[in-house]
């Protein structure tokens, strides 16, 4: 629908006008797509009583920085951001560690029932977590772990995705490196840590980033297991905030802005891993 409607030159860049028009149109699409964030930012700096009165204007009668102050103090925002960061980092770290160990076991050991065990493990990827959250809630209740970091982290660190992805890479990794290290006298664990793990940097990064994002955005489980602002993660903090000040749009958008910014940083910093990860999870099986 773009460059190709114009003279069929092989060099796409050469087809001037159409290409330019196409780019301009795409920028318009981009602006429309980014508009909700723009509007969020604009609203976060408007006095609340002007939010709807200002119509389509991006600025109000004054810049209401105090919205941010209200947002920051109404719920313990610093604590909440820290909780989320801690849960996501520890969760992703645990997921990666467990996945590497399991993938190693599934590729470098042979044992009876290996294929069946791996198949069963893999099959649980299709289980919706919605089935698991109710019994998990009951388990956490029995273990007195409601409202705790272990409850937020542990249940979702043992899925098959990470093991599956890293296993794919291990299968294609020639054993020569490991054999060389073993001949040199290194033990299994040392070989794994100092020889294999560095070679698996790419899939490990992908598993880490995906797991991080899953913890970061997880909503249903924290909603069930957290009942106190001090243990809230970012989505729950926002939920609490909107529950208390549902029509206080200025401070509320300030709060949303405060959680959108770190997410934005994550996407921009980790774009390579994200792209690889999406592509790998789409094609990793083949």
């Amino acid at each position, binding site marked *: 629908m773009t460059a190709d409607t114009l003279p069929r030159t092989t060099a796409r860049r050469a087809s001037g006008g159409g290409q330019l028009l196409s780019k301009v149109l795409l920028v318009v699409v981009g602006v429309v797509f980014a508009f909700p964030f723009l509007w969020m930012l604009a609203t976060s700096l408007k006095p609340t009583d002007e939010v709807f009165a200002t119509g389509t204007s991006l600025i109000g009668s004054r810049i209401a920085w105090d919205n941010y102050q209200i947002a920051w103090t109404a719920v313990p925002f610093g604590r909440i951001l820290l909780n989320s960061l801690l849960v996501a980092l520890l969760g992703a770290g645990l997921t990666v560690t467990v996945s590497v160990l399991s993938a190693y076991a599934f590729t470098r050991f*042979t044992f009876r029932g290996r294929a069946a065990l791996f198949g069963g493990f893999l099959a649980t990827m299709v289980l919706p977590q919605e089935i698991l959250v109710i019994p998990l809630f*009951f388990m956490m209740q029995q273990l007195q772990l409601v409202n705790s970091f272990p409850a937020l982290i542990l249940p979702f660190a043992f899925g098959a995705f990470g093991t599956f992805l890293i296993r794919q890479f291990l299968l294609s990794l020639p054993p020569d490196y490991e054999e060389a290290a073993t001949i040199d006298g290194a033990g299994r664990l040392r070989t794994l840590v100092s020889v294999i793990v560095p070679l698996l940097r790419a899939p490990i990064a992908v598993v880490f980033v995906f797991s991080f994002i899953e913890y970061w955005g997880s909503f249903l489980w924290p909603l069930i297991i957290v009942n106190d602002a001090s243990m809230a993660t970012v989505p729950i903090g926002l939920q609490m905030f909107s529950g208390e000040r549902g029509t206080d749009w200025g401070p509320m958008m300030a709060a949303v802005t405060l959680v959108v910014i770190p997410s934005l940083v994550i996407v921009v910093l980790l*774009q390579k891993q994200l792209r690889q990860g999406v592509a790998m999870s789409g094609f990793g099986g083949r």
Partner: protein
Amino acid sequence: MATVAPTGSGSTIASPTTARTAPGAARRRRPRWPLALYLGPGMLGFSVFIVLPLLFSLVMSLYDWPLFGQAEFVGLENYRRMLTGDPAFWASLFTTVLFAIVYTAANLAVCLGLSYWLMSLGRRWASSFRVLFFIPVVTPMIGNALIFRLMLNDDGVVNQMLARLGISGPSWLSTPGWAMVSLVLMSLWQGIGYNIIVLGAGIAGISPSVLEASRIDGAGPILRFTRVIFPMLSPTVFFCTVMTVIGAFKVFAQPYALTEGGPANSTTTLVLLLYRNGFSYDRLGYASALAWALFVVVMLITAFQFSQQKRWVSYDS
């Protein structure tokens, strides 16, 4: 896990297992604990946090199980009630199916169009726009929903813009039909980034010489898309469709935060109904039965999609 024979070689899949263990009679006597060391953590967590809850969920669905207090065995009563005594179940199933169909169709159409468009503009443009489209995937859904609640308010910026064009906008979030439209719109904004990357990778994998050949043959962009690109991309499109439908069936945070399931339960999806039954109405057993219904429906639909794939998916390149 009786025989443990550590092998150094990597490229074993399933079949060589027996061949490997047979000659290693001496190996069998080697200690088994190394395997346990590597496999243990993962399988322990898997058992405790996936297998156990899975089995337990089946058990709970046979009980009248309150949040706190004594559970009572009721047999299949929860399932009977779900299928024959609770109109809310059928209503939410209908809502969920409607959402899944509309959302998946719109998502795939938008993502295919955008990926094809991005491809034509070269690598730099494509990658920066892919980053842009991916941002709402990562920002917390509750935040996204709050932004849309603000914009789609009766006096919100969307209606004010429409008013400037002389259109009187609807009550987006408080009329049943428009609430569903709003839900789909917000979910699209939030979700397309994912499929754009997957489809983009698929398109990038199409050999340029094939495209070039079709161009020389004089195929226009539309013909080229329907006859060349789409067939070559169909396995990727199939994958995206399957995953998007599964995701759509589990939609929860959007209706929870954007429309609160309303108006008149018109956006109460299965998972929202499940959450409310479990944690607002104190019926964990019934909620477990709903979870199993969700699982069965998702599996049936996925199986159906696989059975239909030979009609339109071509795996030969």
